[in-house]
Each structure stands twice: as structure tokens, then as C-alpha cells.
């Protein structure tokens, strides 16, 4: 390596190291959180060890019962047991009560008799095989639940009951909203960018600044604005009533329309700016060339201008789609319960329900889905490949 190259590496290193430490490592931690299963090992370490050694047939031997009884008893009122009961209750309802009742019971050996006397579930193989799975340290449960699947008592993968199957629908809804927003934004932006590219100097600069203003204004401010605008007695309804377009206020806020409107507003500059960049580079003499060859303006647009401007559309579209897939604040504030996207659930599981495994699993799947769609688009549309390479 030459001296210059060594220097180049040294100059890039600090930034690269910071990105790795602050973003790449956390992402890996996040992926790990989706499959980690530490609660049983932390709360009942000896029981976990014995369970791992057990062959998983029927119910285990007395030593496992004894270890569980003693460790649960010792852990009563401790954080670790709380975490374990949340973890097991997530897999099967009622486990929390079972653990607490067991922790409080006065037990005497032999525990393989005493525990089933406290609760019949301690005599069932299904309870023990579930505990054994929870002792392994890694679990597919969160990822499975994120696609509405579950682990049955015998360890096989089954579909979730209909009343709890929500996530496939949620991912589909997220994808649909992201695509609707992307397409709407591109359709709105294209003629606007086209007009901007042909404006005379000073006007073009003014228009550019007007596009840049919302781009610089905080997304929170813009969402607040929409929250106020779309209220039942807000400015939009007031205007519609005054113009006698409607005779009673429309339900605007907490609807899908509100979500799409506000998201398009936030994302429009991301479409207009790259389109503008590409359109400005299209040689205006091409129009004359087409005309001299006998093409109408419309034919020129379809055959020459549109294909040449597509890279800008593609770049903007990809960016918008990626951003839209991860939108949280806009649907959360102006959407109804039926308009929430995956991000809402990631936030909810982290900050309210305290289920980090589910939050991480949903994040992993969202990232995978976004990457898959973007990758597919880049593969299928050669122009995009040239652009992103």
C-alpha cells in the first residue's frame, strides 16, 4: 500500500469506526435480540441446565422438579422471575399465574408429586417441553409470531388462531401504504419537476427554495400542521363548508386518506429534487431534433424525454419507498387504529408492552422486506442499477 493509500485509510477510519460502533453493532444486537431467549437461564439457571440435559420425553425426573421448585421459590419477588413470567406468558397464557402460585406454595419433597398438586399443569409434558425450549438460549418464537405462526406443544410450527393473527395483515398494510404513497408522490412530483426544469432562472430558484423549505422543516412540525388542519373543526373542513363543497364536516383525521396526504407532503421533496436534477441535464436541443424529424411534442415526450428522465424517477421512488416503509410518526398521529404501520408496533413493543423480542423480530422482518423490494426493483429495472452502482 502506498503512503497516500495508507493516509486515505487513516482519514476514513474514524468515521467508519463510529458508524460501525453506533449503527452496525446496534443493528447486530437488534438482530440477536430477535432470537435471544435468556430469561429462563437467568431466573432459574440450574433448572435450565438440567432441562437441556433432559431427553424431552414425557415429564422429567425428580431432580428437575426439585431444582425448579427451589429456584422459583428463591426467586420470588425478584426482577428475573418477573421477566421469566412475562416471557412464558407470551408463549402461553396463564403461565404467569402458574409461576407465581408455585413460588408462593409451601412444597416438600418429592417435588414430582408436590408440584402437580399445586397445579395440574406441572404434570403435563407440554409444560415441560415448553420450558425445555425456553432453556436453549435461542428461540424462533418471536420471528414466528411476527408472521402469525406459533410453536405447538410438540415443537411443530403451526398457524396462530385467527383472533391473534395480525402481523401478516400488518406487513401487507405497511407495504400497500408505502406503495400507494410512493406512486402518488411520483405522479404528483413528475409534472411539477418538469415545469420547474423549464422555468426561467429566478423563478426556478424561487421554486427550488419553496421545495426545500418543507424539506428542512422538522417532520414533527409538519405532522402537527396536518393534525390541526384535518380536525373535524379544523381549517380544511372550515374551507370545504364555506365553499359549500360539503354540508357537514368530513371525517378527515384518523383516516387512511389523512395518512397518505401527510406522508406525500413529507416525501414530495425527495421526489422533486432528484427528478429536477436529471431533467435539467436533458439537452433542450433534443426537442428540436425530434421536431425536425417530424415527431409531435407528445411523441417527443414519450419516446425521448420520459426515458431520459426515468433515472430521476427511479432514484426518487426508491428513496421514498424506503422512507415510507419505516414511517412512524405520521400514521401514529393522523391515522386511525386501522392505519398503523409496522413501526407503530415496534415502538409499542419497546416503549409500552416491554417485549423486546417482538420489537426486534418485527424490525428484522421490516428491514428484510424493504431490502427485498428495493433489491427486486434494482434487479428488474436496469436503469436503476446503472444509477445506484
Amino acid at each position, binding site marked *: 500500500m502506498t503512503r497516500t493509500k495508507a493516509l486515505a485509510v487513516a482519514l476514513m477510519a*474514524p468515521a467508519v469506526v463510529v458508524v460501525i460502533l453506533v449503527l452496525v453493532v446496534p443493528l447486530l444486537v437488534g438482530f440477536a435480540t430477535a432470537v435471544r431467549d435468556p430469561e429462563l437461564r437467568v431466573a432459574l439457571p440450574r433448572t435450565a441446565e438440567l432441562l437441556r440435559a433432559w431427553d424431552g420425553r414425557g415429564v422429567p425426573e425428580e431432580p428437575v422438579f426439585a431444582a425448579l421448585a427451589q429456584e422459583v421459590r428463591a426467586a420470588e*419477588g*425478584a*426482577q*428475573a*422471575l*418477573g*421477566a421469566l*413470567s*412475562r416471557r412464558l*406468558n*407470551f408463549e402461553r*397464557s*396463564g403461565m*404467569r*399465574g402458574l409461576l*407465581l402460585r408455585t413460588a408462593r406454595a409451601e412444597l416438600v419433597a418429592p417435588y414430582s408429586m408436590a408440584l402437580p398438586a399445586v397445579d395440574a399443569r406441572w404434570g403435563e409434558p407440554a409444560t415441560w417441553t415448553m420450558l425445555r425450549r425456553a432453556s436453549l438460549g435461542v428461540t424462533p418464537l418471536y420471528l414466528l409470531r411476527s408472521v402469525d405462526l406459533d410453536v405447538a406443544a410438540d415443537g411443530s410450527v403451526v398457524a396462530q388462531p385467527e*383472533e*391473534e393473527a*395480525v402481523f401478516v*395483515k*400488518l406487513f401487507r398494510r405497511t407495504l400497500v401504504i408505502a406503495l400507494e404513497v410512493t406512486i402518488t408522490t411520483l405522479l404528483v412530483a413528475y409534472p411539477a419537476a418538469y415545469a420547474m426544469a423549464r422555468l426561467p432562472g429566478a423563478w426556478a430558484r424561487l421554486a427550488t427554495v419553496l421545495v426545500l423549505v418543507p424539506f428542512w422543516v422538522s417532520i414533527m412540525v409538519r405532522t402537527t400542521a396536518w393534525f390541526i388542519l384535518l*380536525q*373535524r*373543526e379544523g381549517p380544511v373542513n372550515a374551507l370545504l363548508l364555506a365553499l359549500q363543497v360539503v354540508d357537514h*364536516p368530513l*371525517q378527515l*383525521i*384518523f383516516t387512511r386518506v389523512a395518512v397518505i396526504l401527510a406522508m406525500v407532503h413529507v416525501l414530495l421533496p425527495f421526489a422533486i429534487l432528484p427528478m429536477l436534477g436529471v431533467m435539467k441535464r436533458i439537452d433542450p436541443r433534443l426537442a428540436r431534433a425530434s421536431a425536425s424529424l417530424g415527431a409531435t411534442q407528445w411523441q417527443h415526450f414519450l419516446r425521448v424525454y420520459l426515458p431520459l428522465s426515468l433515472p430521476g424517477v427511479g432514484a426518487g421512488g426508491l428513496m421514498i419507498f424506503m422512507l415510507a416503509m419505516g414511517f412512524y410518526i405520521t400514521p401514529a398521529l393522523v391515522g*386511525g*387504529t386501522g392505519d*398503523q404501520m409496522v413501526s407503530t*408496533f415496534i415502538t*409499542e413493543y*419497546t*416503549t*409500552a*408492552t*416491554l417485549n423486546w423480542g417482538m420489537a426486534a423480530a418485527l424490525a428484522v422482518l421490516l428491514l428484510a422486506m424493504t431490502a427485498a423490494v428495493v433489491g427486486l426493483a434494482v434487479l428488474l429495472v436496469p436503469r436503476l442499477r446503472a444509477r445506484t452502482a
Partner: protein
Amino acid sequence: MFARRLLCSALIATGLAAAAPADARDLMVVGFGGGFQDNARKHLFQGYARASGAAVKDDVYNGEMAKIVSMVKARDVTWDVVMVEAPELVRGCEDGTFEKLNWNVIDRNKFVGGGTVACGAGAVGWGVTLFYDQKRIADGPKSYAELWDTKKFPGKRSFRYTPKTTLEIALMADGVPFHDVYKVLATKAGQDRAFTALDRIKGDIVWWRSGAQPLQFVASGEVAYAVGFVGRTARAAGEGAAYPLLWPTLLYSFDYWAVVKGSPNTAEAMKLINYMTEPAPLLALAQDWAVSPATKAVADDPAVRARNPGMVANHAEVGLSISTEFWVEYGEDLEKRFNAWAAR
């Protein structure tokens, strides 16, 4: 030059990191906000600060346990005393989220029946009732059964985003008499019945999460009817809003003061809780806000009751007492089902 600047930046960064987790900090009390907390700040938090010399700060949350559990887990406890609803308190006590209270510091005999549990000392009674703006709707629903009649009473309805209270309300709307609500809700069929009843009006529901929201929703006309904290509704009505206080739609319970496990100010926090449940500061508070304390001497004081007709304690016999035992037993499972139901 660059090296020096880099060094400077690194120093600033480490300085920031080191300065961040301050060990000696003020007592932090966290509650549900609103008018109660504004008045509690004056009479209870600052009253204690004046009496003891300790500095007391306060903040607001919406009752979600995640924040508290994660600070206990991370051993970075920044809240000391928290106002908690009963089932969450009992569950958090079992899970090691809250400290067992020190009954040598806090006088256990001053509370009404049920006013104390291992990890909590009764703070105030709270309740929710149905309300609407009579300036917009002259004659609204008077019961939950009527609230479910979307033909006769069109418009959005707002409920708190939680199964607790919402499922009870759904059953009452479906015709279950209020003394049978928990018996029915303890069965799978009863739970199905509650969710089926909610399904009938699902399209008209707007959920609220913080106590200020139902008032804003009704005041701005965003929703026609809301079930909100009665203390705030009564205060708004007292200040001129045309909100009827429909006491037969009351569901009520106690909030408790609790100490977050691992708080560096545990001893001071116990003293603060004892002060906040003493009759004298509560009587002073009752001058400004219609509280229903769990402290016997104040709760039974006829003068306080007469001055504050909106006290929850005055209407206990017509309302439904939210069952702590029920929600300790079924809360986690019903929350799971409720969240899944709401997401569909």
C-alpha cells in the same frame, strides 16, 4: 491542530458521558398529570420540600410499566415515587419492579380499607365516566347501553386504549348488570361477548392514551362522546364546559404511591409518601381540587365531602368498583387479546 481538535472533541464527549448519570439527584415523583398533579405539586410535593428541605421534581407518564421496568433492569433508576394503578402495582410488586414499603416510616393505620398493599400506599380515588358537550348534543346517551346505539347517537366515541374499563363497559352496554360484570368477564364466553360488543362500534371508536385527550377530543368536536377521567371532566364542567356528570356510568378505583425498586432515594421516598398521605396536606389540597384520598381522616371528613360533590367517594354506591384481583389475574392475557383485537 487537527489532532488537538480531535482530542478536544474526544474530551468533550467523555465529559458528557461521565456527567450524564448523576448519582445525587432530586427526588422525582411521576404521576398522571392534569389538574390533580398541578395541585399536588403545590400542596404535596413542594409541601414536603418545604418541610424536609429535600428538592422534589415531578413528571408525567401514562401508566405504562415498560419505562419503569427497563430502568430497574438497567439499574439506572431516574424515578423515585410513582403513582400507579392497582393491578399494575400488584403485578409490579410480584415482579420486583417496586420496593416493599416501609410501614415503620409510613403509618399504615391512617388508610381506609384496601388503602394499602405491600408495595403501595393509597393516594387518591379515580374514576371514569361518560361525558359529552351539551352545547353540541342536547340530549345524549345516559348509559353505556345507549352509547352503543349508534343510530340514535351518531358520531365517534372515545375510550382509553386499554382492556381495563373498556371490557367492563362493553359488557354493561351488552346488558350485564354491574355486579355480575367480573363474574362474566372471568369466563372465555364472557370475554368473547365483550369483544363482540366492541366489534359492533369498532368503526366509531377513537382511542385515547393520556388523560388530556378525551377533553380535547370532545372540546374540539373531534368525537361526540368520551369516557374520561371524571376529575378532569368535573373541573372542566366547573369552569364552564357543558359536560354532564353521569355518575351511573362511573367506574372507579384507587391510585397508589409506590417506590421504584433500586431507587437511590428509597429512604427519602418513604418519608415523602408518608407526608403525602397525611391529613393536613391533603386537606389543604382538597381546598383546590376535588380529591378522594385513601386517608381515612380526609375521606370521611363531611366538610370535604360537602365541598367536593365531584369526589369519587360520594358516588361509589352507583358506580362499578374496578376489581384489582380480576385484573391481576387476567390483565396480561386480556391485554394481549385486546392489542391483537385493536390491530385487526
